């Protein structure tokens, strides 16, 4: 038989979901017309919230930074060399914790007001947000360990908050 792998990359998450479903339906139909074929849907590591999203508007910003899932904001710019180094590195880290963290790239020139709001003076500046609150901040392109700790701390804190919440609910 022939194995088809469906991979969908999209900056826009809603579009991605729609495309994903569309592709699945198409593949199913194709499969139905081929004798002795089976459809496997293989979740790929980059499928989902792992890939870095480029900020497009304020609404998107507010939605992601106030979400249940922690969001890692990376203030960057097209002229910033260190940002170009940090992005794939963070992406890899975020994929390793697939589905648990959002990664949002914010162009500091385009969204100057947001950069000023977060007191960003040098690039890249990485800020971890959860439900509208700033959990952590990292300035510059730093060591592997520091980046791993950034994500781990965020996840630990979210987990702890969830535990407290559950405890409160159960009481």
């Amino acid at each position, binding site marked *: 038989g022939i194995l088809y792998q469906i991979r969908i990359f999209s900056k826009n998450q809603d579009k991605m979901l729609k495309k994903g479903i569309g592709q699945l339906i198409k593949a199913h139909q194709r499969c139905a017309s081929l004798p002795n074929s089976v459809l496997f849907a293989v979740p790929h590591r980059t499928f989902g919230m792992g890939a870095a999203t480029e900020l497009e508007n304020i609404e998107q910003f507010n939605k992601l930074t106030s979400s249940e899932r922690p969001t890692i904001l990376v203030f960057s*710019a*097209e*002229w*910033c060399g260190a940002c170009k180094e940090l992005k794939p590195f963070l992406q890899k880290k975020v994929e390793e914790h697939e589905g648990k963290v959002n990664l949002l790239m914010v162009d*500091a*020139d385009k969204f*100057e007001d947001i950069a*000023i709001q977060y007191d960003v*003076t*040098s*690039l890249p500046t990485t800020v971890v947000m959860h439900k509208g609150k700033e959990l952590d901040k990292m300035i510059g392109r730093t060591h592997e360990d520091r980046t791993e700790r950034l994500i781990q701390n965020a996840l630990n804190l979210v987990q702890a908050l969830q535990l407290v919440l559950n405890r409160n609910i159960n009481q």
Partner: protein
Amino acid sequence: KKQTLGCNTSKHKDSSLVTKMETNEYTYDLFVIGGGSGGLACAKEAAELGKKVGLADYVKPTIHGTKWSLGGTCVNVGCIPKKLMHFSAVCGEITKDQKECGWNIPELEHNWETMVKNVNRHIRVLNWGYKVQLRSKQVKYYNGKATMIDAHTLEISNINGVEGKNETVTAAKIVVAVGGRPTYPDIPGAELGITSDDLFWKQNAPGKTLVVGASYVALECAGFLQALGYDTTLMVRSIFLRGFDQDMANRVGTYMENHKLKIIKQHIPLKVEKTMDEKLKVTFGPTSDPNSEVKEETFDTVLFAIGRYAVTKDVGLEKIGIKLSETNYKIQVNDEEQTVVPHIYAIGDCIQGKLELTPVAIKAGRLLSRRLFGGKTEKMNYENIPTTVFTPLEYGSCGLSEEKCEEKYGKENLDVWHTHFKPLEWNMFQEHEDDACYVKVICTKADQKVVGFHITGPNAADITQGIAIAMNCGLTKEKLDATVGIHPTIAEEVCGLNETKAMNPLAKKTGC
């Protein structure tokens, strides 16, 4: 009208009581119009002295749509990109020397797109840096066009490029630092040409280029374009570098001519037309009688560098009583950079009669803020300002040109010490000229004080900076002779001058 407490406030101008009264009325203690070299320096200094400062910076896009961010001419369309491109050209030239030094370098090709992309990237880093600096020093930055409504009120419009987004502010003191922009000639089709504003952001290679002008901008641009490998022609109306020492200006021009730059002397463009295949056909004629001998030539790019004008016309200055010069709209100021309106000042390229240089604007801006808000009295000294023309053969100077020295002191009262020289490194490549590099030190006969310094050669700028410092300390020929040279360098030539023009009108030098 201000209400006073029954005392004569003009007599108590300097008392803090009156200052407090005055500034409580205004949004800002100081408002700076223009975020270039001068404006930024002035604003930051005032903020550091504890004042409430606002600054508006606005860039009107060029005819071709080029625009840029905070930092002014120097950062965006002047010194910074110019020097980087000049450096690129110099590097290309130096590699020619290296075959004889043992490097196996193939025929080099220059990629314009790569250079522009990286130059622009660096400029954006600087734009960002200035924005952060203003924020950290608590200067309120408006990305908008500031216009005077009345003597103390400004309207800032088009904020962040949003039509209709305006704000009105008032200020106790105002500094106009709007700078200048390149002039277009008044000929049909001029708008098809570009200026230096566009050149440094031009995304694709300029190809066969015509540079019109004889200013340092024209010579520098034509110089690096030619050295980078583009078929370049320079069209000059009359003399090179008006206002500069003419002997030195001609040396710079001759060097470029000897290095494949085509120079059409004593001619002016008459019109520019677009051809069928998107090129530019330029019609030109002799300066003395343009229509007597009309010629045509086609180019990919036409660059006008014929002069600059101050961007003071729509700032609302005239209606509050500040006159602008007829020719280039510059503002007249006294020796404290004050206009005819006592609380309004002007610095930088937009003022009359001063050198259009970044360090001049910066220093004047800082000293102005210190006088206005820091209780200091030091005025800007516009004498002995060193400068360098970054043509392929660099030309550095400090003090007066030989013409101005003769005018001021009389030819018979001057000693002009001079020599040709050849940098040691130029001996590795046989095609370097023996007489391109030249230095002259003009002294007054009486006390041998150095009143003019001029040098053509590699790294002229760095050499000139040191001499400028010495001239500010009252440099004399004796001191130059008493200083031991560093060997082997170009700069040491200055310490070994032993012939004047009178002794030897033309001096040559080879070897140690």
